[in-house]
């Protein structure tokens, strides 16, 4: 088992090379999730958004979540990053990738990680709308 890596990233990351880091001769299954910035939330037209994080706490909490998923679902490896800063429609805001022997645990582990990340990381999102307004979103309101 390789050690899990969670990163708060202020620049785009290469998902292709992250995928490579999950490889193992015994891995038969890889599942991934990407959260993309979309143009509508709660029927308001979004033109861009800003993510803010407490990097130190988010990083250690993110690694904790990856370790939990590896143990719970017997994953071979898991990696994830979350972007911060100003993102445009279509940008990848968050990525999760896991490898496992079989597909069941790969899907379940990947889903567990993204669900926990969304609720536990100190990350905040401010949406900028077509009408010039902006608003801080919380995960109780509409979300990917």
């Amino acid at each position, binding site marked *: 088992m390789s050690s899990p890596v969670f990163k708060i990233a202020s620049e785009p990351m290469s998902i292709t090379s992250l995928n490579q880091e999950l490889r193992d001769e015994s891995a038969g299954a890889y599942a991934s999730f990407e959260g993309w910035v979309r143009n509508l939330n709660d029927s308001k037209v979004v033109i861009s958004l800003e993510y803010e994080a*407490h990097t*130190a*706490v988010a990083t*250690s909490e993110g690694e904790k979540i990856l370790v939990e998923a590896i143990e719970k679902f017997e994953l071979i490896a898991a990696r994830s990053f*979350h972007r911060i800063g100003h993102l445009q429609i279509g940008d990848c805001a968050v990525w999760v990738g896991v490898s496992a022997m079989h597909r069941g645990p790969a899907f379940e582990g990947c889903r567990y990680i993204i669900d926990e990340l969304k609720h536990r990381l100190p990350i*905040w999102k*401010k949406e900028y709308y077509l009408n010039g307004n902006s608003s801080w979103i*919380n995960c109780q309101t509409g979300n990917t």
Partner: protein
Amino acid sequence: MIQVTAKYFAVFREQAGIEAEVLSTSVETAREFYAEVAILHNFSDPVMNCKVAINDELAGWDSVISEGDEVLFFPPVAGG
């Protein structure tokens, strides 16, 4: 009375109008300290929707705060 640094993030920072401040308080727990700063800055989120970290480590709301601690108030999160 102890001196504690309060740090605000995202919507809390915008509502407070500052990133951090040193406050004198006689409370014992993070929960009570939040009640004080919530009155001071008009924060309306209940603690159950928020998180607190002490000296850059996530902590429970009933954690005891001590002289010189940095207490970080995290409003409701929205990752992903």
